């Protein structure tokens, strides 16, 4: 029915396929984001989050940010989420997978969320006038300018006709900082997640250490004996 109504309103040829794809990805992203909120089970939440993030990556592709999109897939979806799922499973015991929230909290959060959404939407509609996008040929997006910028050279601005004096410096320093940051985070996370605990020794350890106590006992016996002797001598 809807199709027919729709078809009566507009011809199929008028459909902007870019918009269709955008709507598709946007719908998946938003729906899954909402599903994350609504889901009770942590693993399912993670699953929806993956879908949402992947759909966002699709949006990035549509927006011409291919590198960012691939990065999103690789790091966010691939790395972060696996990490999360790990966490879920390391603590995978039934009572912890689903911790219920009280319904009053839900209502409250819903209201607050709605208010925030209203504010954000209002901003979204008001800040940016609804412009028609450029239909003229745009330079094909490439990863090269990003790479150059990360190395400290702005290749895009001169290309865009920015006067030489106004070309800003690249992102070498932030890039390095982020690199160091990641390293520190890795080390820190590994350190934080450690736990001390008693561990049943392996058989090999037992075999190795079985010699130890015996010897010490023997030595102890010997030393006490010698103490006795020397004491007697004195």
């Amino acid at each position, binding site marked *: 029915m809807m199709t027919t109504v729709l078809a009566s309103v507009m011809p199929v040829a008028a459909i902007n396929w870019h918009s269709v794809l955008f709507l598709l990805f946007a719908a998946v992203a938003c729906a899954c984001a909402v599903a994350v909120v609504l889901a009770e089970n942590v693993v399912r939440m993670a699953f929806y989050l993956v879908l949402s993030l992947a759909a966002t990556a699709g949006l990035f592709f549509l927006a011409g940010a291919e590198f960012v999109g691939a990065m999103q897939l690789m790091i966010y979806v691939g790395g972060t989420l696996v990490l999360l799922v790990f966490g879920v499973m390391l603590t995978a015991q039934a009572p912890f997978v689903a911790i219920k929230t009280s319904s009053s*909290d839900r209502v409250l959060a819903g209201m607050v*969320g709605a*208010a*925030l959404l209203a*504010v954000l939407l209002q901003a979204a509609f008001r800040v940016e006038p609804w412009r028609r996008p450029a239909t003229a040929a745009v330079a094909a997006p490439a990863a090269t300018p990003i790479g150059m910028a990360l190395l400290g050279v702005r290749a895009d601005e*001169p290309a865009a006709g920015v006067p030489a004096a106004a*070309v800003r410096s690249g992102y070498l320093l932030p890039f390095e900082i982020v690199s160091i940051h990641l390293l520190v985070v890795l080390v820190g996370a590994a350190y934080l997640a450690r736990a001390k605990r008693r561990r049943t020794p392996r058989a090999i350890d037992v075999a190795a250490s079985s010699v130890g106590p015996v010897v010490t006992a023997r030595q102890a016996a010997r030393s006490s004996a010698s103490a006795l002797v020397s004491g007697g001598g004195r």
Partner: protein
Amino acid sequence: MLLGLAWLAPLVSFVAILFFGPRMGHHGKNAAWVATAAIVTSLVLSLAAFGTWLSAHPVKAVSHGAHHGAHADGHAADAHAEQGGHAEHAEHADHGDHAEHHAARVPAAYSGDWYTLYQGGDLRLTIGWYIDALTVLMFVVVTFIATCIHVYASGYMHDELHDVTDHEVHLSDGGHLHRPGRFPRFFQALSLFCFSMLGILIAGNLAMVFIFWELVGICSWFLIGFYFERKSASTAANKAFIVNRVGDFGMLIGLMALWGALGTLHFADSTVAAADGSAVTTPGLFSLVRPAANGHALQVPDGMVAFANADEVGRIAAEHNGRPRDAADEVAARIDGWRSQGIGRWLLFIAGVGIFCGCVGKSAQFPLFVWLPDAMEGPTPVSALVHSATMVAAGVYLVGRFYPVLTPDVLLVIAIIGGITLFIAATIALVANDIKRVLAYSTVSQLGYMMLALGVGGWSAGLFHLVTHAFFKSLLFLCSGSVIHACHTNDMRKMGGLARVMPWTAGTMLVGCLAIIGAGIPFVIGLSGYYSKDAILAQALSYSQANPSWSILYYAVAGGAFLTAFYMFRLWFMTFAGTPRDHHVTEHAHESPTVMVAPLVVLSVLAVVAGWTLPGGFGIANLIEQARPAGTDTTSTGGFLFGTVTVPAEHLSHEGSVHVTATLTAFATAAAGVLLAAAMYLWRIVSPTVVAYTFRPIYSFLAHRWYFDELYDAIFVRPAFAVASLASGTDRGVIDKLIDGIAWSARQLAGLDAWIDRNLVDGLVNATATATWNAGLELKKLQTGRLRQYVMFIVVGTVALFVLASMLFRAALAG
């Protein structure tokens, strides 16, 4: 690019040993391999670069600037002429009209930047390169000698492979220091040292030079203080470092003068691709000081003139208030006038002298040469490296590199300093008995030679001597190391007759001695030192002819040659000739292992041949000539400080009369020195003891090294102590008392205050605290510890803020 890699190879080794040194084999045994491999890599790459350079810029036999156009068909003859000992150069003697040729001649040089460290305003700090024939040559020399020394050191330092008991360090309990070996650490420092030196060589700007300059300094500190448990070693290291800092301070002043006035520290013009794609060329120091427009003649750069005349510029700017372009135009129009008034030349002089100050420190020139002999406290390979190829060479190299910017005044200063150094060091070397000290003072003396040569305009002569000296001095040091290794003593008086037990060492050392005194058959052939020393003498003679008032310089050189010959052969005779003086020493003496002898032989061969010019003109001298800075091959006259000084063009020294005189002088003085030494120490016609006794005061003056250490002690150290004790006395006697008094009265006041405090203020404060406490108790309930509520608060707050703001400042936020 090859040189860049060659430069970085020791860095790689340094980093590798730094991190993995202790794990490299037993006690880091393989560190030597890593370091040697790195330096060999450097050597190979340098040789490759050398080859590339030669293929791109074939060395021509003509050493006299721009005549090859006019005398293209005379090349073969020239080559023969040079082979024959520069016999005939008359045909070049009369070139009145080569100014325009000279103007056109610019040395082949490449420069550029690898990486821009910082760019802001005019200042552009880069890691860059400036490569000409000199750089390439020095790369080969440095890496080659460093390679020899690495190989040698891997044998010499084997003691460090296991735990070492240092018998020279006495602990409080009477025992000797026992410490783990530091083999990898040594090679680590050695690698860094080579890296720094190569960095200086390749540097494309003064800032980079300065960075590596300091790195060389710190490396020398590491290496000289390698046995840092020994007090003498650590003191020597500190001394070397501090004395160098004194020189570096001057260098910093020079740097600031240059940068402040000219805004660039690059040697060469640098071309930077501007953002709009066009290439913007910033002139470097060389082209600023010797602009091509002016026929590469030296002039005070515009920037420096304007800088020196800042008041006037400011006034002009004020006149043209609001029209900076006009102001600039007017300044530009008037600069030539100012320049002719001599404005700014002081600045250039200061810059030159400042830079030279650094070189004084690094190249151990008077008055900062005192550190070099003490640096003998380091292991011998280090001495060899420091003395021949790296540290001291850095100073001469920098003067050579910086030569175009130096005014005749500065050159004169350099020449004088060089002459003084040359003489003082040579005299001290006469009486020193420590084999390494003799060599050390000989180094200082030879450095004085080089400086003097540069100062009197013998650019290529000085650098030529630097190269040849690098070979034979490292040879001499390694030989002495070999001797010390065998005899376990440094004292020459205990040696003697070693030639029989250590034939290789003796032979190679003899070659080194002959090379350093410039032995050769006049006008026919000679060892490497023969050519370089002749060139210096000739140039000094030429200079003294041009400036009769400064002819003392020539005599200093000639006298120095005599002294050199004397003390070098004194050393050789005392060590190797005659009969053993101390049987304990010679009994255990033995030839060194192959790994130590091999570098000796290689170096001795080079010490012989390094000065030769092959048929066809290939030779180090010509190669250096290729890098001659633009505009320095003419006779130039100038100076305001010491009257007019004429720096004669270097090729003038090749003129027959000058050259013949110089050669004969050199030969005569050297022969006289050798004969005297032989007379005293070999044939024993004249007893050294008697001579020493006869000239007792002079002997003890020399033996105490001109009392320089005592002088410095008296001038600088003692006063510093005195000032310090005065300060501390003032502190204790006056200031402390004063403060005590203040404290006492403050105490009384405080007693009063305490009463007020307790009764009045505390009551108020307590009331406030109670109120705060109660408020806190109430507010505590808000902080539930529940993250989720906090999130909620934040969101509500944000929304509320936004709503509030959009109601109040509708326009501001909604837009």
